[in-house]
């Protein structure tokens, strides 16, 4: 089983550099799925999101989820980068890249990683408002728990 690349950092990341690191010089990878999560602000009221994390546990928990994905699908590369600190609207928050022989595995593994990250990785978002007023902590969504739970019912390898 390959080792996942996991980083928790304040700095932005470079999607292509990370993708190249996984695929460079290889002839056995047929599918790469890269998920990028961005800071959204449709109302125009958000100055930034502040991402708080639990140092040490954040990395450890992402590695645990990544290892579960690697047990489940025959991946040839898996990279997860999650940022913390102040993140402005439009900026990148999280990156998951899954590389595999076939597309079904790469898609499933990347979506699995994101669903579990949302509910298990110790990060919390606080809003900073444009008007300077005290922002709220973003509340966890029941739909994220449901998205995580549906993997329990699924077979390890998609039947395609």
């Amino acid at each position, binding site marked *: 089983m390959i080792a996942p690349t996991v980083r928790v950092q304040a700095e932005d990341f470079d999607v292509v550099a990370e993708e190249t690191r996984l695929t460079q010089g290889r002839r056995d990878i047929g599918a790469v799925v890269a998920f990028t*999560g961005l800071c959204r602000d449709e109302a125009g009221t958000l100055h930034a999101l502040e*991402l*708080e*994390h*639990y140092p*040490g*546990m*954040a990395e*450890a*928990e992402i590695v645990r989820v990544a290892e579960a994905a690697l047990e489940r699908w025959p991946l040839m590369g898996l990279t997860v980068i*999650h940022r913390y600190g102040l993140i402005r609207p439009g900026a990148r*928050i*999280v990156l998951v890249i899954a590389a595999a022989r076939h597309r079904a595995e790469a898609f499933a593994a990347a979506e699995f990683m*994101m669903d579990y*990250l*949302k*509910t*298990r*990785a*110790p*990060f*919390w*978002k*606080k809003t900073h408002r444009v008007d300077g007023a005290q922002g709220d*902590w*973003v*509340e*966890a969504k029941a739909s*994220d728990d449901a998205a995580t739970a549906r993997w329990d019912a699924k077979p390890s390898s998609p039947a395609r």
Partner: protein
Amino acid sequence: MKAVYFAWVRERIGVAEEEITPPASVQTVEQLVDWLAARGEGYAAAFANRKSVRAALDKMHVTTQTPIASAREIAFFPPMTGG
């Protein structure tokens, strides 16, 4: 043991981390929450809705029934909103 708090749990308690010395009768995460909640207003506010507080022992998710045993660090925080 060391207790660490995050997000609004941290804000309500007013400190990010502290050394705590619960009595021997405190054996599970739930019992530790009861003991902490009785320490003052901030703690009571942080643990007012038990269901919305999660815990980790030595950086692993645990349930309220998990024994704290010889853990060196316990963390309390709201449901996670990363990703």
